[in-house]
Structure formats: structure tokens, C-alpha cells
């Protein structure tokens, strides 16, 4: 079986396990859904009626199968807080978080890889020290503090960017970006620092490798040697780091969205948890997990594109 197909199969199994855990987890929470739904001072009859209408008296396996069947058709239930379908709320919040995460990832890759290459190539020179110092700062500064400082500096003292809120890209692209710049910096800076350090380490290894000497012996230019040979080999490490840091990106998005009042997934999750909106929590966790599995799948598939030894299953 080819590597991509096997990897997709593994992802589907993981997704199944996640759905079981989410389903069971929500039911294991203290408190009873029917009681919560029945409102103040519920009568036993009202509770029983709710239990019946929601199928809560059925066997747990039957409930799970029903849940999966509904989920597969896009029916994730109705939010007990807003009365709106969970899927609609999720779909509304998703673009905000996706844009935030994607831009933060882009920032981390461009800045992190770029700075990492510079630090490796200019080893022992002032450039390396500068890059290292900035990276250390990026790693040490907490997101909430960086967010506040950036808002004070670039939204209040010099009002170039927006301090809070969200404007959809489709409505006004410029305004959208003006709102996203600061959150993206806050979310992406830590990741950029990690990527930079890993890129630097990987590049130092690649640059002293025999194949780089071969490349130089061919008379290739510095740029061809660094980018075409050394960086190409270092990318496996970079992609690995990105995959591992993804959890941080998701949890970081929750914090960032709180700071900048962005109506994204993070905000949706927090609101749902605080109001014991079980259907919503279930839906949000399922979506987040799926996203996580999907990105990990993409990371693994990216490996096989970068490194033929993985794609072709050969030993080295």
C-alpha cells in the first residue's frame, strides 16, 4: 500500500477514536443535560419528556450511532445557549480562526526559516547574535503581554492597526488585514522563534554535510548551495516542528482571540464551556480535533514530498 493511502487510513481511525472520546467525555461530565435543559425548578415529568425527545434513555451505543449519523450529515445538534444549530455557529467562527492561524503560520515560516538560515550561514557573526536575541525574546514574552504592548503602541499611541474586532475579508480586505496584523504577530511570534531555532540547528547540520561539499565542488553559487542543497534537506526538520507546534497554534488562537475580541473558534469554545452548552462543546472539540488530524496528515504527506526516502520506503 502506498504511503499516502496508508496515512489517510490511519487518520480515519484516529478520527473515529476522537469521536468516541468526545461523545463519552461530554456524557461523563458532571450534571445532567436534561436537567440543565429543563430550566429552573424542573418537574420530573418535564425532565422525562426531554430525555425521551432527545433519546437520552436509549442505549449509549445507540446514542453514539445516532450522533455519528447526524454528524456525518452536518447535524451537530442545537446550541442550548443560542438555540441556533451548532454547525452554523461553527461555520461562522471558522473563517476567523482559519485566517488567523494561516497568517500566523505564514509569518512563522517566512520569518522563522529566513532568520534560521541567516543565523546558520552567518554563524559567529553579529547577524547570528541579533537573530538569536530576537528569537529568545519571541520565546520568552507571553502572548497576552505582547498583545497588550502591541495594542498600546500600534493601535492607541500610533493608531495604524485596529485593537479589536473583525471585518470579513470579503467585506473589506484592507480593513480585514488592519484588524489581523496585531493578532497574527502575537500568535505567530512564538512559533517563528521555535521555527527559527530548529531551522538554524538543521541548517548547521546540513551545511557541514558531505553533499554540501559536493555541491560546492561543482562550482555552484552560494545561493544554490544554501537553498538548493542545505535548506532542502533541513525542511524535514522544519515541517516536523510545525506539526508539533500545531497544538500550540490552536490553544494560542484561543488566547489571542480573547485579547483582540475576534469572533473565532477560541471565543466560541470558551463561551460554550462557560455556559455548559454541551452540544456546542461537542461540536467545537470535534472540529478542532479533525483540524488537528488533518494538519498532521498534511505534515506527514509533506515529508514524503520533501524526502524521497519516506515516500519510497527505502532504508538509508
Amino acid at each position, binding site marked *: 500500500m502506498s504511503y499516502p493511502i496508508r496515512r489517510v487510513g490511519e487518520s480515519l481511525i484516529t478520527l473515529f477514536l476522537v469521536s468516541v472520546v468526545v461523545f463519552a467525555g461530554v456524557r461523563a461530565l458532571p450534571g445532567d443535560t436534561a436537567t440543565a435543559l429543563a430550566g429552573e425548578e424542573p418537574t420530573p415529568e418535564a425532565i422525562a419528556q426531554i430525555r425521551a425527545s432527545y433519546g437520552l434513555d436509549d442505549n449509549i451505543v445507540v446514542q453514539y450511532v445516532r450522533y455519528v449519523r447526524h454528524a456525518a450529515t452536518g447535524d451537530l445538534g442545537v446550541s442550548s445557549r443560542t438555540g441556533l444549530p451548532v454547525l452554523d455557529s461553527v461555520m461562522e467562527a471558522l473563517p476567523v480562526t482559519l485566517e488567523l492561524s494561516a497568517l500566523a503560520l505564514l509569518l512563522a515560516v517566512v520569518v522563522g526559516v529566513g532568520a534560521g538560515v541567516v543565523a546558520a550561514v552567518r554563524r559567529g557573526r553579529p547577524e547570528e547574535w541579533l537573530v538569536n536575541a530576537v528569537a529568545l525574546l519571541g520565546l520568552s514574552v507571553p502572548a497576552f503581554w505582547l498583545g497588550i504592548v502591541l495594542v498600546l503602541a500600534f493601535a492607541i499611541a500610533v493608531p495604524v492597526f485596529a485593537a479589536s474586532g473583525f471585518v470579513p475579508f470579503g467585506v473589506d480586505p484592507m480593513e480585514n488585514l488592519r484588524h489581523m496584523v496585531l493578532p497574527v504577530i502575537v500568535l505567530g511570534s512564538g512559533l517563528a522563534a521555535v521555527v527559527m531555532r530548529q531551522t538554524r540547528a538543521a541548517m548547521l547540520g546540513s551545511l557541514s554535510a*558531505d553533499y554540501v561539499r559536493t555541491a560546492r565542488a561543482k562550482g555552484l553559487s552560494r545561493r544554490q548551495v544554501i537553498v538548493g*542543497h542545505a535548506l532542502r534537506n533541513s525542511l524535514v526538520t522544519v515541517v516536523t516542528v510545525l506539526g508539533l507546534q500545531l497544538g500550540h497554534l490552536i490553544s494560542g488562537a484561543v488566547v489571542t482571540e480573547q485579547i483582540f475580541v475576534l469572533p473565532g473558534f477560541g471565543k466560541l469554545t470558551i463561551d460554550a464551556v462557560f455556559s455548559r452548552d454541551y452540544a456546542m462543546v461537542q461540536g467545537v472539540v470535534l472540529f478542532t480535533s479533525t483540524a488537528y488530524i488533518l494538519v498532521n496528515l498534511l505534515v506527514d504527506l509533506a515529508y514524503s514530498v520533501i524526502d524521497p526516502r519516506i515516500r519510497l520506503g527505502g532504508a538509508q
Partner: protein
Amino acid sequence: MTTSTAPPALSVRDLSVVFRTPTRVVHAVDGLSYDIAAGEVLAVVGESGCGKSVTSTAVMGLLPPTASVGGSIRLGGRELVGADERELRDVRGREIAMIFQEPMTSLNPVLTIGRQVGEVLRRHQGIGRREARERAVDLLDLVGIPAPAQRARDYPHQLSGGMRQRVMIAIAIACDPAVLIADEPTTALDVTVQAGILEVLQSLRERLGTAIVLITHDLGVVADIADRVLVMYAGRGVEQAPVGELFDAPRHPYTRGLLGAVPVPGRRRAEDGRGRLQEIPGLVPSLTEQPDRCTFQPRCSYADARCGERRPALRALRERDERNEGYEEGERSGTERHEAACWHPVPVRPVLSEHPEGAERSDDAECSGTERSEGAECSEGAECSAECSGAEPSESAEHPEHPERPGQEAAS
């Protein structure tokens, strides 16, 4: 072989390579000189750490910035020492190329073979991707890789070590370089694969007249394909001679030791009946200084006071001393000369000979100082006689005599 009038393809003069780190200084190569003519195979031999690889890396201009290179390296009339990086990049891969000793790691694992061979062609011949690919397949075919069109699409990990070394050769010869440096091209490979690699190098020399510098410590390989041999010890050249002559009549005590340390099937030491190989006693000196003496002196059983006081230069030996045939000096051309850097070269006698003939005249003559540096050409006669306490050169002797320790001779 070539005549002395043709300019050498590569000429190294008084090359020095010094590595400086904050804690120490290493003189990796110290005053090395050699020439190599088109179509010639020069073997550079010596123990690990004697500066063989550093020399060739210096010639390629691939040393790290911690190294400082002195002297002169002329490639077809172009000076490479001190040339700027841009100029060197145009030379590398086109006029001079190198095969490295680690075929398993010298190819980039994430690029196809075809791409890696084609890359050097695109760099120097300004051809397109498609044409480079076709030429790469031709080159793979040339170095004896079966099904080259398919192999060109393969990645290095799909090839065996021998095949990878052939790919390295294909890369090296892609632009028909005038000089090819092969740094232990067969060391990492099976013996059965070695022969194939050497064959490829041989045919290359014959077809294109490529000058090949072969770095090795495999004396069997040297005997196989080299025309001339340069022996290095502790960063200096100690002996240089046509290959047959070096094996038949090594003149530097170190070369003798090196040859004596090679196992020869069916040969044992007669004296004790055990099959022990001769080893050279002592250790290679540290290269942190540049002593004005023979660096082999501490390990040399022939050494006398002078060896510890002045550094012997690598100079041509007089024919009379070598063969006792009465050639005049200078008759042999540069590439055919036999040179040794020794104050008293070992008299001509095969290493693995019968009982040494000079044994009876041995010991006291050694340090008397009345003996000249036998065999040394000594064109600067005044300097020589001064060293020799004014004594007449003992050329009347049938052989330039020399203390010889019989026990060190391997008898058959």
C-alpha cells in the same frame, strides 16, 4: 607520461595550509610541491592525517575559513591561491573536479541522481534542464551504470555504494576537467567494486587525457594505476618517484617503512618465523609546530645529528646513486625524477630483499658527519660540503653507504 617541456596541468609549489583556532595552530601542509601532467596519474600516499586530503581540498579551494593557504597552486597557468571565490566557482567542476571518499553521504539524499549530475552541466555549460538531463543519462552510462535512464530518476538511497561512487565520478567528469582529484575513491567500497571504479578512472585518463591525482593509502591501488607516487609524511612531501622505482627502490626511510607495513601474501619474516608485519615505531608528530628538522627523525633508525638540526628539502637524487648506471644529473625530466627529502637516503635495494648487502659497513659511519648526504643532488655544493665537514663526497664507493640494520630488513 609527458615530456618536460609541456606545462603541467596542475602545479603545486611550496603549498602550506595552516589551521588557526583560538586554542591552537596546526600546520597541516608544510611546503608541499608537485606537478602533474595531462594524462598522468599521480598517487599521493601517506598515513591518515599526513595532509593528503587537506592538500586536495586546498587545491579545490574548499577549505573552511579557519584555514590559511600559502604558496602557489597553478591550474593550467591560472593561479588559484588568493583567487576570489567567484573565479574559483567557475573553475570548480569545470577545470578541476574532485571525487570524495564517502560515496554514501556525498550525494544529496533529497535530489534525484539525474538532477545532481545535470546540475554541474547546467552550471558550467549553460544548457537547459532537458538537455542536462539527457547528458546526465549519457554520463551515467559512461561510468558503467546499468539502465542509466531509470537510475537518473532514482534517489541516492536506492543505489549501492559502488553505484553512488560511479555517480560521483559522473559528476566529476561531466565537464571534462583537466584535473581530477580522487580522494580515496575506493576506500569505502568492497574490493570487488574497487576494480570497477579504478577501471573507470583509467579509461578516463586514456580517452580524455585527464590528469588524475589519486589520494589513497592502498598501495595495491597505487601499483595498479599510478604513474608516479608522492609520499607525504606529517604535512610534507618526503619522496617522489615513478611508481616502479618507488616500489623497487624506496629511498626515504619512511617510504621503506610504509612499504614494509604492507602484507604480502606468502611472505614471512625469516628471523623469527612469525608472520608479523613491520611497523614504523613511534607516532606521527603533532603538527602544532613547524620544526626546522626532519619530521621523521624521531622515528627514523637512520637519523643522525643533522636530521635533528636542519630540514631536508625534497630534491632529485643523482642517477648514479639510484641505479649506478652513470646518468648525468638533469637527464631525466621533472616527472620522471626520483626525489627524496632525506639527509641520507636509503641505498637502492628492494624493501623485501635478500640479506642487506651494506650491513657490514654500518654503524659508526652513520653519525660521523664525513659522509655526505648520499644521493642528494646537492647542486648547491658549497652548502653541502660545509655541512659535511669539508670531506670529499664519497662517491667512489660502489654504493653510497649507509648504516643498515639487518633486523629491519624483511627477508623472504
